[in-house]
């Protein structure tokens, strides 16, 4: 009996000891990793992105190639997290930052989406790196304005995408007597052709789940209000409750009436595929869609056409991927070296050739890029630049979530234009 009791006490003791040790071991690993192994803050750089597949991965690989050429002594560590168009990565990033275990640098949309990280003091002001790397002259002034918050800049953009693009299938249009080369000056002109397709029994406009509907909403607002009033929506000078916004939302309602009924179950590639396959006439999507066409050997001009959303000609609705310097990054010098490559002409050229977006720098040589990219580079150089809503450039995450909720409610038919408008106004009032 005695022995038994002692044995059981010992077993219990060992079990507790084991658990404690296991717990210590874990926390020791997490925290102790960098200082011991690294020592030197420029020995390596962990780059956290959601570029894990397709053209995005190709772009990252090209950028890493350039980084290795520019900084051969720094080891690149790929922290890419796949899944959910970045949402899986953002979730993981949020918990890592919360636990004070940041990567050396992470990908984020430039603009107000960074606001939460700034408020939480999780990322550093990198304005002085702009001076050090001579980036102020390299990027267009409009862009610098759009990404400056309270006099400071918190990230370095690696590429620019355009959101206000319509993709169309010329075969479908011609079959229904619409000239694919037609230039529209307003949404109303476009509605006429959408009606034609509707009457012919083709899906006129393909759209996917909520975020693509917000994307469509943003381009509609831009088309209907114009660039200045659209910008005013984000700084408060345009009244969300005003009559112009009502008119824009009515346009949006009409556009949604042309869309496919299974939209909420799709994501953007499936919506764009409807146009590629000739099941839909038009699709409004950012210019990452060009990769979907090119992957299937479609040629711009013959197999598909692209033009700015009617009413937004001369306006470039931008969003940008960018890299940050987190507070407490284990290898800040490694991160700075990475940011230098990201901002450099060679880095931007290599990255964007593979990814299909365009460099943020104005000194890139257009001849290095594809036909669509050349037109985008040209527009980016001369157009008015405005910030995208659906892609985090124009508002903080909480506002965007509230806008998405209101939009989903509206497009499923649970609210009317008036309710939708007041919900949007409430969302943007904070």
């Amino acid at each position, binding site marked *: 009996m005695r022995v038994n*009791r002692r044995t*059981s*006490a010992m*077993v*219990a*003791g060992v*079990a*507790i000891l084991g*658990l404690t040790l296991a717990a210590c071991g874990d926390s020791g690993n997490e925290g102790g990793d960098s200082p011991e192994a690294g020592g030197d803050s420029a020995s390596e750089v962990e780059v956290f992105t959601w570029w894990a597949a397709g053209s995005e991965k190709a772009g990252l690989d090209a950028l890493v190639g350039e980084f290795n050429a520019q900084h051969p002594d720094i080891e690149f560590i790929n922290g890419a997290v796949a899944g959910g168009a970045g*949402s899986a990565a*953002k*979730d993981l990033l*949020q918990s890592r*930052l*919360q636990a004070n275990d940041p990567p050396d640098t992470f990908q984020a949309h430039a603009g107000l989406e960074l*606001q*939460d*990280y700034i*408020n*939480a*003091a*999780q990322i550093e002001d990198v304005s002085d790196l702009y001076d050090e790397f001579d980036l102020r002259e390299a990027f267009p002034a409009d862009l610098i304005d759009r990404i400056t918050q309270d006099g400071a800049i918190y990230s370095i953009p690696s590429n620019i995408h355009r959101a206000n693009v319509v993709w169309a299938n010329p075969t479908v249009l011609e079959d229904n007597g619409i000239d694919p080369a037609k230039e529209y000056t307003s949404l109303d002109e476009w509605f006429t052709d959408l009606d034609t397709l509707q009457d012919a*029994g083709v*899906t006129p406009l393909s759209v996917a*789940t*909520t*975020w693509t509907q917000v994307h469509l909403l943003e381009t509609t607002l831009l088309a209907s209000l114009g660039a200045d009033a659209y910008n005013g929506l984000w700084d408060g000078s345009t009244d969300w409750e005003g009559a112009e916004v009502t008119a824009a939302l009515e346009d949006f309602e009409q556009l949604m009436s042309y869309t*496919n*009924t*299974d939209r*909420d*179950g799709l994501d953007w590639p499936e919506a764009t595929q409807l146009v590629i396959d000739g*099941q839909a006439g038009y699709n409004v999507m950012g210019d990452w869609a060009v990769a979907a066409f090119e992957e299937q050997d479609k040629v711009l001009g013959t197999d598909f056409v692209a033009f700015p959303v009617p009413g937004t000609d001369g306006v470039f609705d931008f969003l940008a991927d960018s890299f940050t310097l987190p507070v407490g990054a284990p290898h800040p010098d490694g991160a700075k070296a990475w940011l230098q490559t990201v901002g450099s002409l060679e880095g931007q050229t290599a990255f964007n050739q593979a990814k299909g977006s365009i460099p943020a720098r104005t000194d890139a040589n257009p001849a290095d890029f594809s036909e669509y990219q050349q037109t985008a580079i040209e527009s980016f150089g001369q157009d008015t630049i405005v910030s995208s809503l659906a892609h985090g450039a124009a508002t903080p*995450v*909480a506002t965007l*979530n509230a806008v*998405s*909720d209101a939009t*989903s*409610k509206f497009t*499923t*038919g*649970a609210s009317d234009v008036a309710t939708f408008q007041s919900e949007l106004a409430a969302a943007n009032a904070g």
Partner: protein
Amino acid sequence: MNKTIKRAGPPLLLLAPSILLIGVFVYGLIGANFRTSLTDGNTAAQATGQQPSATVWFENYFTLLGSEAFQHSLKNLFLYTAVFLAGTMIMGFLWAWMLDKPIRGEGIFRSVYLFPMAVSFVASGVVWRWLLNSNQGESASGLNRLFQMMGLDFLQNNWWNNVSVGIVAIAVPAIWQLSGYVMALFLAGFRGIPDELREAARMDGATEWKLYRYVLFPQLSPIALSALIIIGHMSLKAFDLIMSISKPANYQTKVPAVDMYVFKSSFEYANAAAVGSILLVIVALVIVPYLIRTNRKEH
């Protein structure tokens, strides 16, 4: 004193790790969650302690319960739970009742019915998203296309995209997956009733209906209750199936668990915690009476 330690010490020591772990990771975290839900910490700055959060007591709860959007989520949750429960109980019982009769190949049927449970909600959700495609007419696919091929065009509908009862469509795959499990429970119940009881009832002249009503059903009721509790709490926590068929931002399929996820992603930790607490209370309302009942029985 010494004796008490000697007697209670070793078992306590043995239990200590699990008591400690459950105390910290279950009850401690429930407490922490509840405390967060009483603050106004709904911004990123407060989440990292850059700005102080104040205690606002139950304000988050009042705002949530008063908001139309959250009421819509709750309504969806109850609708989903009601249909899911009714569906699995009816299907599960019918299958068990049929398999209880001596038939050939019972093992095969049992496995066939039970198999869907082995598939994860995420995997089956991907397939069901396609089956429940809401296109009708020419561009229909999935079940709507099947209805067309069978000449049952009038059955076509927009499934989970119906704004008021769309959530019921998502209960269909859930029923498909869990009915087999309920069947297994009921089958075990049927097999646990000794044949002598049936024979005795028949000897006394009970009709088949009376046999079920007065002899078999009363003995199955504990099983039915367990099934209700198990399926009910799974249903209240519904998240993965909804996320893989629909998307978190889709209004028509919002439930509290999805709200919690969306709040969390925009740093509204206090609201997310409040939704968590509300869910915990709802689940507790189902489970606690059951635990009390079983506890009483054991004594």
